[in-house]
């Protein structure tokens, strides 16, 4: 005999009618702060309390930068070939198809032109969600054509990098994208069209060793991991633990490879100020 007798039968709500908090409504930063995603969105995806910069993709950056989220996308339908017939745990075309399905992206970069505070700007922005933002032929080609567009129209070029490096499944082709994009940047440089490279978390490997480090202005978001070799590889090579803050944006700034670090909430206005200074 229990002390209390249930008069009504316990839980009567059927499973399908249960009200669950939808997934992804709240975001927890590594520092432990919990933010509502709406608030995060209104704050350029920066946690208002601890300033943590959440990883975002091209959709969000375009939204932040282009006036009224209006822009013309370039080469929106370009997607990857399979020149090597590459197979690891699954064939490369299947991996591409599955990733396109899950991310609703065509590849790891999107390029567009539009207005930022009234100024013309060409932007190429990488998407880390697409195979770690890896650089294959599509990334190389789209960036190259975006630079071509910047060259033709004498429009400043902004590159937002976010990548683990080269895409192994395109091996030699992937490597040559470093050369190809750098060649185009050399032309842009000769034409004296401003190039701003924004490095975001993370920017490593072949991307760091090509276009990401070639800006007239190299700038980064706070706390971003920036390096050539990944931290794990370096730890294995040197056989000791890496110092705290190693390869952070602040570390890279300290060693002289960045012009400044910019809070994402100030990004649009900072870029505008800089580009206006160069205009006349």
């Amino acid at each position, binding site marked *: 005999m229990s002390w209390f007798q249930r008069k009504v039968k316990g839980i009567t709500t059927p499973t399908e009618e249960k009200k669950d908090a939808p997934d992804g409504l709240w975001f927890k930063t590594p520092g432990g702060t919990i933010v509502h995603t709406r608030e995060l969105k209104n704050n350029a995806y920066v946690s208002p309390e601890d300033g943590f910069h959440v990883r975002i993709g091209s959709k969000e950056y375009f939204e932040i930068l282009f006036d009224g989220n209006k822009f013309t996308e370039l080469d929106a339908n370009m997607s*990857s070939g399979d*020149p090597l017939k590459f197979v690891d745990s699954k064939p490369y075309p299947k991996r591409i198809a599955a990733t396109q399905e899950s991310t609703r992206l065509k590849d790891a970069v999107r390029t567009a032109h539009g207005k930022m505070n009234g100024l013309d700007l060409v932007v190429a922005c990488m998407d880390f969600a697409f195979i770690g933002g890896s650089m294959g*032929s599509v990334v190389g080609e789209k960036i190259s054509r975006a630079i071509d567009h910047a060259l033709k129209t004498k429009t400043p070029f902004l590159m937002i990098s976010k990548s683990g490096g080269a895409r*192994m499944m395109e*091996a030699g082709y992937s490597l*040559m994208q470093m050369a190809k994009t750098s*060649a185009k940047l050399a032309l842009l440089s000769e034409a004296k069209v401003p190039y701003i490279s924004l490095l975001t978390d993370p920017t490593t490997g072949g991307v760091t060793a*090509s276009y990401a480090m*070639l800006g007239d202005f190299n700038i980064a978001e706070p706390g971003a991991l920036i390096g050539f070799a990944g931290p794990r590889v370096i730890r294995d090579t*040197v056989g000791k633990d890496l110092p705290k803050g190693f390869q952070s944006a602040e570390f890279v700034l300290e060693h002289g490879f960045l012009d400044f670090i910019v809070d994402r909430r100030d990004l649009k206005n900072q870029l505008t100020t800089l580009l206006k200074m160069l205009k006349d």
Partner: protein
Amino acid sequence: MLLEFEQPIIELEGKLAEMKQLAESSRVDVTEDVKSLERKILRLKEETYKNLTRWQRVQLSRHPERPYTLDYFYNITDDFVELHGDRTVKDDKAMVGGFGTIGGQTVMLVGQQKGRNTKQRQMRNFGMANPEGYRKALRLFKMAEKFNKPIVTLIDTPGAYPGLEAEERGQGEAIARNIKEMFMLKVPVICIIIGEGASGGALGIAVGDKVLMLENTWYSVISPESCSSILWRSWDYKEQAAEALKLTATDMLGFGLIDGIIEEPLGGAHRDPDWMYETLKNRILKELKPLMKQSAEERINNRIEKFANMGEVVE
């Protein structure tokens, strides 16, 4: 050093030596047998080296007896003056360079250098350059441009050094700058992969009017071992990784990512270094001739055009 797939050849060569010795000591006439065995060995060698798997080519490219960069520099030139230092931090021993004369033509020679024994390997950092190595190379490229001398680079590296100080001094920036600057060099640039051509570490001195590979070398975005460890999450799939990466000279030429292949002696460059030096030297002179006739503008445009066309996309 003996590679596994060379075992049958070595066995036959052993037999041949025995037979020759026997002939001397017993005065039995074995001339015919010797000839037949020699033919057999040659056939086996041709068979073996023609049908190497991609992984076996990688092994040959790393053969410790292969000629290294400085061996070429001293043996293909009449005079060679080595030049040191990046004028900023230090002299990177993994990246070597200097002026040399080849068949009466002064050229700037630059390349990664590996070591032959433990001590040298340490000094040369296994052919893995630091940022100052790439900056040293760029300094020499600019000097070549200043004095209007063509540039020849020899590539032989398992990658740019992934170290702590390398990151502090901007490994990524150093390589990126080299790639960009090499496109704008006014003088002819010939780049030859003589051993390993690993990733950005190789590309950092491999942007040229002509990019060539020796027959038994590899050039790709990652080594088969690292590729195996990342994609298969184990070091044991290097053979598969090498196959998947299609990293041999024949593959790369087939893709149009390089401009040509330089033949090696049967069994690899180390089997007949003198022949190899002569072949490399003649090829450099042959490639330089038409390039020297072009204007700087023509060369730069062609160079950019060539790399701009690399890639395969679906639209």
